[in-house]
């Protein structure tokens, strides 16, 4: 999987890192004023999927493991959060914690099994296990089968702030998103993250240097699953709904597409990809063009023509010009 990310992106000139920092600040400023101009629920949807894609990218971009089953963690956490908030009457932050913990637990089981094989087998195993989880959700009583968990109360954050106010909800989601992305940035740029990248580049060598590769992979898998769960739980609060759609394999495919389109192994790529795909879906469902056909077509074009993704290609161009 080492071939998926562009190693040139690692040796980018320092000017580009500074540019990235300023662009992130500008983007954050835009996100703070955006809800006054754009429908907040739409923005929150983008933020949830962007965090989901970033969490997925932690695994594929920095460890080189392509999971085809991340829907299980996203949708699973949505169920856990929705159930604990609606049925147990817990506050939203505790509900989110339960969602994250549940997703991490699922990630531990799935990851433990999947990292026993590599490459293409890893992808097939994650897909199969997430499909198994889908069938469990289909039959388990607490998920309410085809109906899903509906009418999830948003509740009061820390028992004080009512999240029924759209702006309060929006800024809560924004804080969660920023915290999640910062956590991923910190993981990637830590000694732990460097070992992950070493595994991606040359696994036998990492083993021969004495690293317990399996433990690092499992650690990254659990973190990725937990962050995907954070995104899923947040989405359940925003839409007050947890359904089978979020645990289906199509959802695993969508998050792959978002990451691939934006740029695997870049910090901003998954965010850009998620924003594009969500916007496209909203637009297409209004016009009545079959969404899956277009998503499939974008997949084909991405894989054939620009494998670095939008942000990846931009970074590549800029760093070549800087040299």
């Amino acid at each position, binding site marked *: 999987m080492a071939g998926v990310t562009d190693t040139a992106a690692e040796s980018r000139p320092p000017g580009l890192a500074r540019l990235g920092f300023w662009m992130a600040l500008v983007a954050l400023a835009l996100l703070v004023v955006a809800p006054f101009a754009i429908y907040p629920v739409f923005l929150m949807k983008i933020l949830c999927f962007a965090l989901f894609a970033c969490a997925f990218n932690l695994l594929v971009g920095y460890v080189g493991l392509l999971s085809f089953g991340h829907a299980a963690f996203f949708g699973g956490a949505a169920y856990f959060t929705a159930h604990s908030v609606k049925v147990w009457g817990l506050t939203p932050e505790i509900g989110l914690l339960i969602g994250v913990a549940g997703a991490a637990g699922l990630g531990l089981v799935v990851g433990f099994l999947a990292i026993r094989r590599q490459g293409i087998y890893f992808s097939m195993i994650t897909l199969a*296990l997430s499909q198994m989880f889908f069938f469990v959700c289909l039959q388990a009583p607490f998920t309410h089968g085809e109906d899903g968990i509906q009418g999830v109360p948003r509740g009061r954050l820390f028992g004080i702030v009512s999240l029924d106010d759209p702006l309060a909800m929006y800024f809560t989601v924004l804080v969660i998103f920023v915290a999640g992305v910062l956590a991923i940035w910190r993981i990637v740029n830590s000694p732990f993250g460097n070992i992950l990248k070493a595994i991606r580049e040359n696994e036998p060598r990492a083993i021969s240097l004495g690293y317990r590769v399996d433990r690092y992979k499992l650690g990254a898998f659990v973190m990725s699953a937990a962050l995907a769960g954070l995104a899923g739980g947040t989405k359940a609060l925003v839409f007050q709904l947890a359904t089978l759609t979020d645990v289906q394999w199509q959802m695993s*495919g969508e998050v792959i597409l978002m990451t691939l389109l934006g740029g695997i192994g870049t910090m901003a790529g998954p965010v850009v990809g998620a924003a594009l795909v969500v916007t496209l879906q909203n637009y297409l469902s209004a016009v009545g063009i079959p969404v899956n056909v277009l998503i499939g077509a974008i997949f084909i074009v991405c894989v054939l023509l620009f494998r670095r993704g939008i942000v990846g290609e931009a970074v590549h161009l800029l760093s070549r010009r800087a040299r």
Partner: protein
Amino acid sequence: MTMIFGVALPALLGQLLLGLINGSFYAMLSLGLAVIFGLLRVINFAHGAQYMLGAFAAFLLLERTGIGYWAALLVAPLIVGVVAVVIERTMLRRLYGLDPLYGLLLTFGIALVLEGLFREWYGTSGKPYAAPPELVGATNLGFMVLPIYRGWVVAASLVVCIATWLLIEKTRLGTYLRAATENAALVESFGVNVPMLLTLTYGLGAALAALAGVLAAPIQQVSPLMGSNLIIVVFAVVVVGGMGSIMGAIVTGYTLGIFEGLTKVFYPEASNIVIFVIMALVLLVRPAGLFGRGA
């Protein structure tokens, strides 16, 4: 009435037969996946869509041109094989030498497009496709009643699997194929047209999936979504068997189908997930798969 473990014998045999039929499809599909993966190093996610295309080709041949089941058994795989050859020549070919995951993503995109288009044109409800008159009805075997078409599917799939195995293990073409799997550059330097071999292999794999689709058409209804759920189970079958051996793929396919059938008798709630559970157990005990050669 004879009882085994508290279950009536006819019910048990009926579910065993259903399991055997599912196993036939698992075997034919995982066989095609293994053949394609062996040479092209591509996991063909579009395999389920090609299976669906085969069923639809049979349905449309009958609907539009009046070409019946027996001819469709030959024509539908041919059509799908040609489509696959075009896909290989125009798209898949550009990804050789890259990480195999790109092949998975490309074929995933192709599967989405194909399924999306057929869903748009024909909706999600299944279309009935009648079995040919020769195979309608049932025969009493004394210990159970066997619907003739179901017996035919099991027999036909066994023949197809064995024929494919013979083609790969015993013929000259198969020898080239196996040699190219080991070392493509060397085989090419001996004057074998390896790019052509790759194209044909992908076409053959897709045609096998389409043939399975035609066989399935009278049992299940012809629907755009018939392939996508099946392919994930077949992936699990492939993980259990390991893609190192053709015979391994066949044996694993039938065995897991039978296990699934048995689960339906004794613990129906788990019948959807039993294959995935077996996959998890095999991964714990033998990570390389039952017939695999290393990870």
